[in-house]
């Protein structure tokens, strides 16, 4: 069994794809066809990591869905990093609907991922983070990313 688990579910003109695991040289995207639908919704919440081979495979694969409107949901940090750094990772016909932002409490060493949703915490060219993110003990956490790098794709 591969290191990437892909579940596909077609609802009329819409294709829902749920992915979890590792995207690397072992992934065979050829079997997951992106043709014949008008909308593709990708849920990337379970992606753990992606390496350089995986990035190349992804670009080829996602580029084959050129005829559809693609949305990326629940993008973890590993995916947001690629969107910001690699041309073609988020093709022009695709849009991020939601992504996770890591927060950190330095004194307790606690990490938390907060979901930013389109229309609520961000939209094209602007960002409105929650006024305060607290950990389980009620302490305020700090955003754990370099804003100018992490939110670059929103400004594109």
């Amino acid at each position, binding site marked *: 069994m591969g290191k990437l688990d892909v579940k596909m579910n077609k609802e009329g003109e819409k294709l829902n794809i749920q992915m979890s695991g*590792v995207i*690397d*040289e072992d992934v065979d995207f050829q079997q997951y066809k992106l043709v014949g639908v008008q909308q593709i919704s990708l849920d990337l919440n379970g992606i*753990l*990591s*992606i*390496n*350089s*081979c995986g*990035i*190349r495979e992804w670009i080829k694969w996602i580029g084959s869905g050129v005829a559809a409107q693609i949305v990326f949901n629940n993008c973890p940090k*590993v995916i947001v*990093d*690629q969107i910001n*750094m*690699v*041309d073609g990772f988020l093709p022009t016909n695709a849009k991020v609907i939601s992504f996770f932002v890591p927060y950190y409490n330095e004194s307790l060493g606690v990490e938390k991922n907060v979901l930013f949703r389109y229309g609520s915490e961000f939209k094209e060219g602007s*960002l*409105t*983070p*929650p*006024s305060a993110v607290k950990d389980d003990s009620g302490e305020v956490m700090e955003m754990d*990313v*370099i804003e*100018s*790098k992490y939110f670059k794709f929103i400004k594109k």
Partner: protein
Amino acid sequence: MSTENIRALIIEDDSSLGEAIQEALNREGIKAYWTPRPEEGLSVFSANKIEFVIVDCLLPQMPGVDFVMKLRELNPGARFKIILVSGIYMDKAFIQESVKKTQALSFLKKPFDLEQILALVKKDEKKEELPARKILYQMFSKEKVTNRDKKKMLESIEEVSGFDLPFVYSLLSETKSSGYLNIYSQDGTVSGLAFANGAIVGVDVEDKQTVLGELLIQSGYVTPEEIQNALKDKTNRRLGQALIQGNLMSPHALDLMMTEQMNIRLSKTVVDSQVKLNFATSEVEEISPSIDSDLLLNYLHDWIASKVSVSWLKSLYMMWAGHIIIPTASLRMDHPALTMSLVQNLDGLVERIRESATLNTLLEVKDYNQTALYKALHFLLTKGLIVFSSKATFSSEGEQLNYLKKIDFEIKGKNPFEMLEYIGVNSMEELNSDKILEEFLPNLGDEPKNKSGELSKLWVQLHFKFKQAVEKSRDGNDRTKFKKETQKNDAEAKIRATKLVEEAKQELQLNQYQKAMDKVAVAQKLSPQFFQSNIYMAWAKLGLMETRKNYKRLKDIEIDLIQVPPDERYDALYPFVMGLYNKAKGDLVNSKKSFDKALALDPGFIVARRELSKLEAQLKAKKQDIFNMDITQAVAGFFKKSK
């Protein structure tokens, strides 16, 4: 970091409070501007590089929140932080809403303590205490480097040079990392390394050219004919598999060669161009072949010697020239790194490091080859065996003066952009001029007390020159023009250098060593990163010293040879020159082996054949000498301790 370069803008209609905040910030060295009028605030903001805006929420002409929104609208790319203050709006919902809308750092209710504002500004300033690259190279000074430290470190760096990569690889290896390091080049290509508990288990580069065949022949595992036969194999098996299944070599030997091929691929990432990095921790399976920390030591030495240019190292080490070199706990006298050529070439280096040397003092050591010194220190730093003290120290005014004179001499005739390159500014795309000065100027040392002396004058002059260079380099058009000109000049220089080396090659084959050496020297000056020239330089030097052994010359040649990049060593030329080198050292057996390797790779290499014949004759004569000598002499010879 000093607060001198922080600028703040205060928009407050209560003049006593506005002035009080301004004074408090000024006292801390922060340049603060105060105005009660929002419109004036907008102009002050656009004329100055403001990092903090302190705004009263209730202003006569415009609400503070609207002012911030307008500021963002008029300055879309600007990065600044907001502190909201109010004595009227105390409602929790309003505070939450306005903080959210303006993305403010904090909301202070009047009356507040001025210390609160100072604490907010200073808290932010603390995060940027040191330039990211400086922190990267000081990572080994931490007792324990956590995964989070590494991740945050790599995230904080916008771009690094390909020449920084050996350090990054070493850091990930030494700290037993597991995960994927992705490397994004400017041309859009992505390469990657997989780490499993510190060992490199996978190298993925775009250029997948294989040199496995050459490696196997050169190592003596198989002959060219056996490779040819294996390649004719019709069963679609890979070369290695075909050789193993044909009982021509062992799986272990193949692993060794595959590791060597990984080295060559890794070495291709060590280039003089900017890359972006991303490291994601992940569980990665430990597989074979792999490069563990011990093996990486050899490769790091190799890459630093042969790939990283000394001019780049000089720029990097500008930031530490006057800092004391501190040995880390790992620097034991029996550490294998100390047996490597770069370190061995510099007599007493480790002892000097243990006696609080600085780069400046080491550069004064007469017998030290400057290239070897920079590379040896970089190798030790990369392996985590040394770090630098946090503050520059000059033992005397004389030392500081010498250092400043050296800089003054080296920047003579350079244009503003070349001056910035000289101090290590590689990426002009994201030029933060103030930061550059802030990072570099402290390296010139404290301002001399005697204001009329030579040292003081030079100190002031250099400060002025670098500030002026930064000022002039702000022009984007000039920057593009310079970049194009530099690229053109570099390309032309490389073409001329290549032509000269080609001519030198012909001359070497005709034993015209001096002529060839002169040409290679010019080529190296024209294109310092044309590392292939080192092999021809070594050949020429060996040709010239053929008649007598010269220890100093041999050390010099060794430096030329270790600067030949790994991917340039797999044709017949490298083993041929190694043959000449071994012969010059008096090691005739290894010399013969090297010539044999050269001829195995290229049977038509006439000069190698000629040298081999000469050597065989010499070896034969040596054998006959034993039979002709007196019996006591011969017996004594057998038991003589080899030196």
